[in-house]
């Protein structure tokens, strides 16, 4: 027991002592902040703001449209009467970045709704302009049909859809944006941390193998004890890392709430400060630990069957891909947390450590599903560790070429 403790301490102390640990600890929250800020920016339409409206209409439609867009506050719209070479000169303006783009409006806009937009970022332009231009045209059409301008103004009042999540029959204080951002947050951290620390276990196994330290160690304690100490030690490092991130994140979020009052309002619409309950925290930790144990046992086996860093990098790919897949499917799950795919992924033990917390944060989950998923995960940890420990036991003393599948099966049988 004391020997396992010594292994745990060595793994912990040596890792926490490195520069990289502290760089990760400090940079992690900053990086997350940047990613979130950028996604917020993207959600705002890539900064399509300054636009011109080339007015080729015979009525007041062009002028009215410019007025409407300008008043919305989201754009600085200028009306330009159609003339020779006006399109060319506006194109030049776009190229020199004095303008984000321009709309070409003709009489056809009223009847067929056809409006042309040219700009540097047409994808964002389409997303951002579709609704306001459409609404502005509706207003003009109604006015032309002789509807009272006051009625038109009242009818054109924009929609403010407010969402409240229902958790276990109670309406929670969370908005859709908050659940989305919480799910996104948890999924990303779980995926990154399980992968990162799993690979840490792998390189630790590999180091002992390549330096032959393992011979001395295995003559003093059982391979399983060594493996256990290693996984516990690296796991302790990851929890310490979370602790630092948690404290740093709290400080950062407190600060951000103040910033949100200012300019970054747009980012807040999509990514809001999540409300982390005790239950959410428990789910996060349970699935992190489960996923970490499951994957680090597999990564340890990969390290044990490889002889060089390069071999290990290749051999770890199938293991890493299982994680990557569950991360990729996170976005589909966010769209529909109740879909058959999402339910399956949150029960399969290789994807549930990422999938289940994401579903938990995104939608309403029956407790029975969580219990079932955790039970499967624990059972899988038992089975996978049993196999991995056997591969580990044989592999750490083997040198030379990597075993093929047949040899691997023999290792598992004979160990």
């Amino acid at each position, binding site marked *: 027991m*004391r*020997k396992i403790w*010594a292994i745990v301490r*060595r793994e912990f*102390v*040596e890792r926490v002592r*490195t520069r990289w640990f502290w760089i990760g600890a400090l940079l992690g929250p900053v990086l997350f902040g940047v990613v979130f800020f950028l996604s917020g920016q993207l959600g705002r339409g890539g900064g399509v703001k300054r636009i011109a409206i080339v007015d080729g209409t015979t009525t007041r439609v062009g002028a009215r449209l410019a007025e409407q867009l300008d008043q919305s506050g989201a754009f600085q719209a200028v009306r330009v009467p159609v003339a020779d070479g006006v399109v060319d000169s506006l194109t030049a303006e776009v190229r020199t970045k004095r303008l984000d783009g321009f709309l070409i409006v003709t009489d056809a806009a009223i009847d067929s709704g056809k409006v042309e937009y040219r700009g540097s970022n047409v994808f964002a332009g389409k997303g951002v302009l579709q609704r306001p231009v459409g609404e502005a045209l509706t207003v003009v059409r109604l006015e032309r049909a002789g509807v009272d301008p006051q009625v038109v103004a009242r009818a054109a009042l924009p929609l403010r859809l407010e969402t409240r999540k229902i958790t276990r029959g109670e309406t929670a204080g969370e908005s859709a944006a908050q659940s989305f951002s919480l799910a996104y947050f948890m999924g990303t951290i779980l995926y990154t941390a399980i992968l990162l620390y799993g690979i840490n276990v792998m390189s630790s196994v590999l*180091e002992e193998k*390549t*330096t*032959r*330290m393992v*011979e*001395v*160690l*295995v*003559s*003093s*304690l*059982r391979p399983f004890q060594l493996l256990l100490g290693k996984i516990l030690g690296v796991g302790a490092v990851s929890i310490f890392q979370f602790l630092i991130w948690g404290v740093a994140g709290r400080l950062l979020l407190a600060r951000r709430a103040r910033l949100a009052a200012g300019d970054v309002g747009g980012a807040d619409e999509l990514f809001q400060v999540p409300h982390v309950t005790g239950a959410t925290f428990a789910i996060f930790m349970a699935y992190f630990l489960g996923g970490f144990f499951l994957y680090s046992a597999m990564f340890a086996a990969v390290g044990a069957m490889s002889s060089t860093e390069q071999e290990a990098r290749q051999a770890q790919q199938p293991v890493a891909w299982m994680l990557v897949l569950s991360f990729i499917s996170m976005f589909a799950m966010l769209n529909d947390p109740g879909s058959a795919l999402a339910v399956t992924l949150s029960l399969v033990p290789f994807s549930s450590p990422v999938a289940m917390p994401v579903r938990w944060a995104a939608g309403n989950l029956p407790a029975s599903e969580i219990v079932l998923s955790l039970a499967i995960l624990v059972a899988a940890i038992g089975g996978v560790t049993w196999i991995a420990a056997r591969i580990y036991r044989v592999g750490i*003393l083997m040198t030379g070429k990597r075993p093929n599948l047949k040899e691997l099966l023999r290792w598992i049988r004979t160990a």
Partner: protein
Amino acid sequence: MTSVAPAPTPILVLDRVHKAFADHTAVDNLSLAVPPGVIYGLLGPNGAGKTTTIRMIMDILQPDAGSVRLFGAPAGSRVHAGRIGYLPEERGLYRKMRVLDVLVFLGEMKGMERRRARRSAGEWLERLGLAQWRLRRIDELSKGMQQKVQFISTILHEPALVVLDEAFAGLDPVNAQVMKDVVLELRARGATILFSTHIMEQAEKLCEHVCIIARGRKLVDGPLGDIKRTRGGHHLVIAFDGSVGAAARVFADTTLVKKVDDYGQYAEVELAAGADPQRVLRDLVASGARLSRFELREPSLLKIFIDLVGPEAAQAGVRTDA
């Protein structure tokens, strides 16, 4: 094999140990006993099964058949980890760890208390001239210094049995000297040392007991002196004092002499099988030769080794069964 006194209980006994890998037999029905307090040499050409044997002793590999007993008990080495020091053939340490931390950690692996490990490590580092490196990282040390650190890690916990696999291979002469001195000191303190090597000159100087194996099989074992006596006695060194008499006729007697290297006043003689050296002496004196020297020479360990293993295997150091 002529052991005079009743043998004390051996520290290590291998009883018909057998180990086969997928494509060959590494250790074949090997039995040996290491008495306490000796320097025991496990000798053999490369690929003879020395490292496999040692790994089975260290409980790293399990024998397919047979048993290993340490300190009179059948339990594996892990139970006795605190009493055994093991230096594997291939060396290495955690490269990024500090010297003192590595030693304390490995001491803990042997069941030492942290404080004791720290004190003992400090003392050994001091003794081997590495005191000022104690807080440096392993990869800042020279190869020779790393070897010293690893050697310290083997003996830090004052083991009763020290197992050194090809301990002197790759050591620079200065370190080899240091290590030899420490090995002798441990032996003087009562420790038993089992060391494997394929370099016979080294073994001859250090070992009291040897076991020579090849292709996984034991060829001979016992106290080195006994082996030399039973294996030797075939070589004569003869020097004449002026008159050689009819020595040439005596040397020509094929029932007595197998081979002779005659320098006139000096000759080296290899006796024929079963020939009595005393008859050579009698015949020479009877032939009128005056002798200044008549010596029955013990063969070197290397000679015995080559005789047993065969010159190709001994020199090439390759497995002949592969």
